[in-house]
């Protein structure tokens, strides 16, 4: 039962990753690609870690997985912001 739910969470997380990758390949410009990648990948990672935490069945490991997700969330948000800011600066001289 728990394994089934964990597998469902992991597979849906993978679906979001797939969506993010398709967005990376198909969307027209940098900003929309960043948008798709950051949001979809973070949500995918959240579902993935939820599934893994369920599967691990040990509270300490589950907490560590959640911490990993939070750290990746913050880091990818900040780096997406920096990339977009840099691209903006390149476009509009001064």
């Amino acid at each position, binding site marked *: 039962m728990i394994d089934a739910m964990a597998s469902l969470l992991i597979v849906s997380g993978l679906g979001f990753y797939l969506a993010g990758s398709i967005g990376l390949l198909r969307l027209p410009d940098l900003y929309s690609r960043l948008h798709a990648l950051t949001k979809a990948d973070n949500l995918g990672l959240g579902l993935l870690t939820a599934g893994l935490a369920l599967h691990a069945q040990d509270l300490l490991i589950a907490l560590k997985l959640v911490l990993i997700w939070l750290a990746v969330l913050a*880091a990818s948000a*900040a780096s997406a*912001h920096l990339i977009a800011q840099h691209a903006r600066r390149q476009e509009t001289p001064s």
Partner: protein
Amino acid sequence: MNTTALLVLDVLLVFSLLSLAAAALATRDARRSVILFMAFGLVLAVAWARLLAPDVALAEAAIGAGLSGALLLAAVREQPRRALSGDTKPIHSRNDAGLKVTLQWTVTLFCVALAAILAWALTQAFDSASKDALAQAVSANLAASGVSNPVTAVLLNFRAYDTLLELAVLLTAVLGIFALGPARSGYRSAGPVFDGLTRWLVPVLILAAGYLLWVGAHAPGGAFQAGATLAAAGVVLRLAGQRTIGLPQGHTLHIVIAAGVAMFLVVGLSLLVLGRPFLGYPPALAGGLILLIECAAMLAIAATLVLAFLGGRPQPPSVNPAGAKPGALSISMLRSRSREFPSDTDSHNAESCRGFNEEKNRC
């Protein structure tokens, strides 16, 4: 574990490794090559985890993908269209096309032959009868080594001499980097988003480095991974535009860089004086001595990697004042510590922009 699933995972991993390597090496654009190389390093870290090598996976993710990628990106940033990037014409491009093609084919065949020889040697290694001898020697002596993680035991006790020489290689590299010129120009000060990230990321990285150092005795970890994590904290500080990125100045910096080799030598020579072999720890003291050496090594590795990222001799803070984006006062300038900026924050003259290259310079 389901062996078919593992096999599928292995095939996928190997396929991604090969295609990432090929893509990184075939491309013309320097930046794309570096980014693909970083991705290759990360997939390689997963491959190490799959092959039950967690210490190596940690080190690869931190050093091989992270710091190597940062080094290469910093170099690409500096010379975008000159010596480091170029076209894919082979070296002898001035000769006729026939020689070019012949050279390419010769080198390719040579590489294929090398790969075949390596594969044959690999077969021999798999079939060899004595391949477990070293592993058995390690597990037999593990209890007397002072730590319970076999990789740490090999690195810092059984083959401590190799680690001493490796730290000497690091020292030589940083001496060479010092001799070749001043550090690269800095980065503009962080905006509120990056500043906020740095404020909690750097303490967490320092804490993680201390934890990795401590836990290396009985679980995957150790001085190299800890040093790399500390270096990552330094790189993040540098990217956020800090001047003195936690590195000590002047002579203290020299002492910290040499600390790894120095501590090894001090321990080894005092053991020699006391009648034991060089770096032959007495089993009672082995754990403590290993921890002592690892602390010094961690600091030395971190300082070396941060200096490698800087790319040269660090300049004293007064030489090149950190330049902020001129124009309206940004939130970061209001929030930053005053020591990072000259007191005349409204004088956006050319001097404050001198530190940046043409690409980033929007003064």
